[in-house]
């Protein structure tokens, strides 16, 4: 079963482009509907855990793996889900150095660079919409902008202070 679970996560990890939310339905299909390793309730709890832990939503696979087969399940599931991304990124990184010398590739990259600017802006707006739904959160975000931007404070302390404030006022 451990081996089957690993193969499932490997397959899902190589197909889900576009981040964690694309992953949810694929995982549910595989783990809940097809193999019935998790109940629908456990699955939803796993998604919630993925959201309250730091890092990618995909880490919910660690939680689900733990329920399926303990620590080894958590390890292998995480490995399986991230391995395809790791290998492809490595491959692209290696190939990229040579490709970068050619003028068409450089022209294409100039276009891509500009689009990344748009991507970051869309991300800021998305996140703001999802999290700034009460006065305390808005105040934290504004304080964060001022402290990290003009005041040039170290982000790690600002974020830790924000977490403490949230734990205190937003429970």
């Amino acid at each position, binding site marked *: 079963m451990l081996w089957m679970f690993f193969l499932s996560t490997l397959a899902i990890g190589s197909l889900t482009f576009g981040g964690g939310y694309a992953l949810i339905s694929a995982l549910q299909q595989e783990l809940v509907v097809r193999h019935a390793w998790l109940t629908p309730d456990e699955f939803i709890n796993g998604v919630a*855990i993925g959201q309250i832990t730091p890092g990618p939503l995909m880490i919910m696979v660690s939680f689900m793996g733990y329920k399926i087969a303990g620590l080894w399940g958590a390890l292998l599931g995480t490995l399986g889900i991230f391995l395809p991304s790791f290998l492809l990124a490595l491959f692209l990184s290696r190939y990229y150095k040579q490709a970068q010398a050619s003028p068409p590739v450089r*022209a294409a990259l100039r276009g891509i*660079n500009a689009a990344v600017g748009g991507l970051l802006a869309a991300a800021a707006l998305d996140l703001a919409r999802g999290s700034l739904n009460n006065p305390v959160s808005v105040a934290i975000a504004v304080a964060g902008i001022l402290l990290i931007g003009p005041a040039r404070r170290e982000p*790690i302390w600002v974020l830790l202070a924000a977490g403490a404030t949230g734990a205190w006022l937003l429970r």
Partner: protein
Amino acid sequence: MVSLAELALVFLKVGALGFGGPFALLALIEKEVVSRRGWLTPEEFAQSAAIGSLTPGPIFFAAAVNLGYKLRGLAGAAVAAAASLLPAFAAAVALAAVYFQIKSLPAIGGAAHGLKAAVAGLLFTVALRTGRSLVRDWAGAILAVASFVFLEFFKLNPAWVMIIAGLAGLLLYQRPARTNPEPGANGKSNIRGESREW
């Protein structure tokens, strides 16, 4: 040369503080690797983000692998990958282990909420500054706005946005370029290679 220990430390930090989704993680990496330490230029960072969006899985993860590879080769890629996931993995396993005893974890939920709000603020500053150094001309500005609109309002997959932007770049920039060095687009940051030519 960046040491592997330093690399691990940076990505552990990013992994531990990265609340608020894949783009927030990307912004944290930018803050640490580009604007704070100057290990990479904004262009190199943007290319890592592009590679990230062309691979399956979270964008930040593949970007971290690419950054690690650029800085320290294969070992750097492995260290960046493992370090960026370790905090989340440890948290998920610990929560799984205690989950049945404590049904709800309100304080953790509140802390995650506060962090998310601050990360939204951080992302705003990063988008502003990175955008200023990545968008160098009118065509670039139009591309940036178009990618924003398609991602935000049409929910287009980032991989498609990157592919289309690449094709647009091919059409727009491949002619014998009139070079405009754009002085001082980003005067106050300490990014190395700021005046590098394309």
